[in-house]
């Protein structure tokens, strides 16, 4: 089981996520928000490109995103792995999309990552608990 402390007085649940490069040799750790309202994890295209992925590749599937402000299309890249709370999930689909910098994050941790866990949000202790589903 993984336990992550988060700031229970913050407006959002901020986490650090490690994203593994396309050659598997290094990672970038980014601030994201846990978002159970997002089907898919979202990261900026330029960060994925820096990690060696090709978000502009014409062969990538483009996913229709229904957002609060309308419908947008974004390419979906499969990253080697994401790591959160010490738990690593391999081959995760990530939508390439820039969120406004004013939110103080680089992306969203969506349900396609979270569905690998039973997880609880404990506001009383400011902790998230993740149990990996075997």
């Amino acid at each position: 089981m993984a336990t992550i402390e988060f700031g229970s007085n913050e407006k959002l649940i901020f986490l650090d996520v490690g994203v593994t490069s396309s050659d598997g040799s290094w990672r970038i750790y980014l601030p994201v928000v846990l978002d159970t309202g997002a089907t898919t994890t979202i990261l900026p295209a330029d960060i994925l490109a820096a990690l060696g992925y090709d978000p502009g590749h014409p062969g990538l599937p483009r996913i229709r995103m229904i957002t609060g402000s309308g419908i947008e299309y974004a390419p979906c890249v499969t990253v080697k792995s994401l790591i959160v709370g010490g738990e690593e999930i391999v081959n995760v689909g990530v939508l390439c999309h820039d969120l406004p910098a004013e939110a103080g994050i680089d992306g969203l941790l969506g349900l396609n990552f979270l569905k690998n866990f039973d997880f609880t949000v404990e506001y009383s202790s400011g902790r998230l608990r993740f149990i990996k589903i075997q």
Partner: protein
Amino acid sequence: MGEKVSTKKIRERYKDEWVLILNPEISLETKVEGGEVVFHSKDRGEIHRKLNDFKGNKAIVFTGKIPEDVGVLL
């Protein structure tokens, strides 16, 4: 190699900025604990453009907070 700084110190030194950290120290719960600050800016885009200037593990930290009078719908 530059000075290793804790994330707590980074938040004190670079208020309301995006900070690029090289060779970050990562806790068992995947929290960025500190590292070598190689660039900082109010502009997130500048940080992203600097990523390819450095080899190895990196981390991005935002030291600001969402203002009290702002709501977020993502």
